[in-house]
């Protein structure tokens, strides 16, 4: 990072160290004076919050691993021993359990922020893609972590989700056998899930490092979506954003703590307090709340896709559902190239703004549908609307939002952009006429 002569520090020990390994210079450069757009709103706190949650999960998880036993006969009781007999075990376990939910809440808000303000656009495409990789790793980690307590929902959730891979042609069944380490979800499955659940968070930490490194190449986006054009548009990261991030993080932690101490089982399923029993299927298998939208997309594909008039089946409904589910995440990878508009922030994009709100409503709708039984229905007056249709409609909106972006960019007339960040913030000529021409050019 920093080459050539380092800056000199007053403290001789710091100076000695820094001349040999310039970490203090690096911290100073990347977190001290690092020029940061001056107009962040509180949405920009969620990167720091997600980082704190990752650390919380790793620390609490390592302590749990010291007391946990990954064996199908002992796992459930070892978790209960943590809850009952380990000093403050209940606290550590409830932090870890609810921490997963609050990690996902922070990351979902972080991702939505990126969508809304166009943070995925040039030159931040790779930064965005690395972020999607982190999200995928988080999903894998959370899924395997949920299996470890070996409750009924652990076991049956693992059975349902791993079975999805069997829909893949040719290799499907082999992949499932590999995941299971046998012919059903059993002790080998639990052991490999535990090993991977311990490994993946460190992989996430490494990829987060890449995410932050890439961020510090391009610099942050901001609510206006126009690049800083000079020192008047930026502030040093410290103290302005260290203090703002600290405040936001502590508020978030307070909400987190309220759940840990006063509603620790709010996000949980009662069935997971019953030890796994391969002979008894729970009446209603649901994944954790943060997977519900994708689960709803999976269940929305209830039809085979065939060539019309020939009866030739191209894609069975099960495979179609799996493709749609993975596609709903995979589409994020190509988002930077789907969106053809040169304007980043939704503030200046009237059509995109409506689209992203529809997308958000569809996302919550899918989350709701995913939590209901497959045959549930809405009764509005005399009208019965099966939730499958609601889920299919929301799935359509979900994909429609992304797939319409190339055209939206062509037909949309963006609102006039401010000449620079400093102008609207400092109130010097908010109209900024004539600034619409080439908004994305860097100064």
């Amino acid at each position, binding site marked *: 990072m920093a080459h050539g002569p380092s800056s000199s520090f007053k403290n001789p020990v710091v100076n000695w160290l820094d001349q040999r390994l310039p970490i203090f210079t690096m911290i100073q450069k990347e977190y001290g004076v690092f020029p940061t757009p001056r107009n962040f709103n509180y949405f920009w706190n969620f990167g720091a919050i997600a980082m704190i949650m990752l650390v919380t999960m790793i620390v609490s998880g390592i302590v749990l691993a010291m007391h946990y036993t990954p064996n199908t006969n002992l796992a459930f009781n070892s978790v*209960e021993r943590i809850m009952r007999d380990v000093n403050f075990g209940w606290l550590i376990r409830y932090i870890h359990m609810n921490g997963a939910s609050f990690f996902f809440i922070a990351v979902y808000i972080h991702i939505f922020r990126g969508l809304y303000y166009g943070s995925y656009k040039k030159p931040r495409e790779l930064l965005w893609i690395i972020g999607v990789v982190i999200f995928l790793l988080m999903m894998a980690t959370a899924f395997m972590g949920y299996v470890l307590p070996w409750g009924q929902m652990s076991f049956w959730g693992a059975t349902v989700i791993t079975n999805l891979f069997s829909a893949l042609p040719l290799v499907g069944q082999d992949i499932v056998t590999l995941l299971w380490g046998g012919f059903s979800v059993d002790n080998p499955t639990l052991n490999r899930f535990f090993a991977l659940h311990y490994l993946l968070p460190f992989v996430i930490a490494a990829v987060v490092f890449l995410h932050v490194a890439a961020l510090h190449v391009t610099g942050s986006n901001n609510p206006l979506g126009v690049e800083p054009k000079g020192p008047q548009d930026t502030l040093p990261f410290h103290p302005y954003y260290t203090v703002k991030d600290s405040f936001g993080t502590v508020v978030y932690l307070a909400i987190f703590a309220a759940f840990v101490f*006063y509603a620790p089982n709010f996000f949980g399923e009662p069935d997971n307090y019953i030890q796994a029993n391969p002979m008894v299927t729970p009446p209603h298998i649901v994944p954790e709340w943060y997977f519900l939208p994708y689960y709803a997309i999976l269940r929305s594909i209830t039809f085979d896709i065939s060539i019309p008039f020939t009866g030739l089946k191209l894609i069975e409904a099960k495979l179609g559902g799996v493709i749609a589910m993975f596609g709903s995440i995979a589409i994020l990878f190509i988002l930077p190239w789907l969106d053809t508009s040169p304007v980043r922030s939704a503030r200046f994009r009237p059509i995109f703004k409506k689209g992203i709100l529809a997308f958000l409503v569809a996302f919550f709708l899918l989350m709701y549908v995913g939590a209901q039984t497959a045959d549930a*229905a809405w009764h509005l007056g005399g009208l019965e609307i099966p939730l499958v249709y609601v889920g299919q409609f929301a799935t359509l909106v979900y994909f429609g939002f992304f797939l319409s972006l190339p055209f939206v960019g062509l037909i949309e007339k963006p609102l006039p952009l401010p000449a620079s960040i400093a102008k609207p913030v400092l109130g010097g000529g908010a109209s900024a006429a004539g600034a619409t021409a080439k908004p994305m050019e860097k100064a």
Partner: protein
Amino acid sequence: MRRLRSLILAGLVAVAAAAPAVASEEMEYPKNEWSHGGVTRGFSNIFGTFDRKALQRGFQVYKEVCSACHSMNLLSYRNLAALGYNEAEITAIAAGYDMTDGPNDEGEMFTRKGVPADHFKAPFPNEKAAAAANGGKAPPDLSLIVKARKGGEDYIVALLTGFEPAPAGFTVPSGGNYNKAFPGHVIAMPPPLSDGGVTFADGTKATVEQQAKDVATFLAWAAEPNLEARHQMGLKVMIFLIVLAGILYAAKRAVWADQH
């Protein structure tokens, strides 16, 4: 941004409003007052503590009635200290059970009196035996039952007081009993409680409702023995975080004062 927020809210409200209209077989149970706030009810009573007298009465109900069929494998007699029993009382309770231990140096299993460190003695030697003695299905372990059922303590009370004659046209298969709170309404367990079925030492009238509530309190404690410690620590943590947030907000205002 404001319009965005109101749109999100409107969307959420629409979803929430539609939710109750969903045809669902899930049952609602009458809500009772719990001094501990209810283990599965979030934010119900952040200062809640268990009613010690109810805990002791509930333990008595479990010991004299439920434990004939239901195990509580995750509990030890030493845990009863939380109910307000002293060491001598706990030792006496544990000594009331014969435990199989061993093998000893001769390789023989032997029987000894229970000690406080022993887990609650299960009514059957194993799950197969429990199933065989109960029409093919073992009665569930009660250690976590309050957290393992939707409705928590309220469900336990509804179930224990929910036995009644089947409505006309409802056929109860042999070996089953009609219960209005049980999902599907047919339960293998016969009505376990009866008015005056136990005699409480503190003079409380042992109605079915009273026993049901007391044993539900006891089972809530068994499922979540650290509830009181959690509530107490939560208060300190919340005060700390809110004060810290206030200080940081003031710091943020001071740092940003020259930028607005």
